[in-house]
């Protein structure tokens, strides 16, 4: 379930974030460059705790991207680790997440070599005033209201995956 801030929770999140970041860096270092881009089906990682949105994204990908592998993580910490493990071609990230939130997760990803903003799609149910505390992390990224996912996700994902193709060409 989604976690919400208190001082104690925020401290715990940051601490957990450092642990996850360290594990991510170790994984990246341990992986030989030749294995980072194997020929394989495009891979999308969804980091989202709401089963309703997981279902919606699953349906959209089944309809529009049948050859794409969809992986899911239900909290920020496992999302960060899955990102390092799977090396997804595109990421779809919610903002309010259990564990580290989407803003901290994206801030962590930005510190990694090879970070590419164009493969990241941020989604949220937050209204504008509630979104304000998080916008610092999303400069240059697509932030999509969840109610617009049925019409906006597929074009954005197509663009992210096209960039992947261009990068590998």
């Amino acid at each position, binding site marked *: *379930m*989604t*976690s*919400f801030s208190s001082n104690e929770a925020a401290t715990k999140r940051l601490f957990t974030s450092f642990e996850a970041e360290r594990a991510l860096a170790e994984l990246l270092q341990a992986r030989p460059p030749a294995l980072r881009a194997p020929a394989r089906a495009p891979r999308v990682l969804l980091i989202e*705790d*709401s*089963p*309703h*949105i997981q*279902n*919606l994204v*699953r*349906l*959209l990908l089944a*309809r529009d991207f049948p050859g794409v592998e969809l992986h899911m993580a239900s909290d920020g910490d496992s999302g960060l680790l899955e990102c390092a493990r799977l090396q997804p071609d595109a990421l779809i990230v919610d903002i*309010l997440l259990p564990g580290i939130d989407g803003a901290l997760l994206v801030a962590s990803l930005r510190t990694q070599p090879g970070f590419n903003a164009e493969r990241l799609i941020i989604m949220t*149910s937050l209204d*504008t*005033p509630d*979104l*304000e505390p998080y*916008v610092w992390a*999303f*400069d240059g990224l697509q*932030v999509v*209201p*969840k*109610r*617009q996912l*049925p*019409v*906006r996700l597929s074009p954005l994902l197509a663009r992210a995956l096209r960039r992947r193709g261009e990068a590998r060409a």
Partner: protein
Amino acid sequence: MSRPRIVLMEDDAPISSLVSFALEDMGVDLVICANVPEAVARLKETPAALLIMDLMLPGESGLSFLQRHAAAPLFAATTRVMVFSAGLTQAMRRHLEPLGVWRMLAKPASILTLRACVEDALQDAREGPTRNLRAEPTQPASAKARPAGNDLFGGNAWLVAAYSDACLGQFPHDVEDGDAAATQGDFVVLRALGHNLKTALKLLGHDGASARAAALEVAAAQRNTAAAPALWRGLRKDLTDILRRHAEAPAH
């Protein structure tokens, strides 16, 4: 194709310059007006995709202007209205909500947020008719019951049906989680349920239930021991009613 037109009603020149700077590479035609009569004239001259407006203006206030527009339209219904003001108190928001305001953005706001709002407005304009807040309470009851297949789902009937089925499979779990959370006074779970269900129910066209879920999210965040359980009971009834209606509907 002509550039989308945006009218900015703002008498503070430094803020107008900042908005102009923020939007300069977005391919829009920005028209700056310092007061209500000037903005009305420019909006009538050529319909705009978006009106960004302050509330505190010389002469007629922004609130008075919106009240007059609600009574007798002063500009095209397709123009989204975004109030951009330092005066957005909760009381003012309540005044503005029934007046057809598409979005409210409090000053100060980051350039990024402002640009995101404008992008949303232009995207909404491309997608179809205006979805200003005013449109929601005036929807007929039959429209609320109708799947949102022609708007939020871009008219894709398969996706509406498949998503509806997926939600019907998930709602019993939500009811179970909500009951346990309400019994244990677990506001974190209740808030998350409200947060998640407000979008799912909105997508399915259950606007009243979506509004109740949003209210639950707020009450649970405030740890309101009276309102949160009561709102959960209301939302629980919404979910079970949806499940019951589905079970009673004739199979296709």
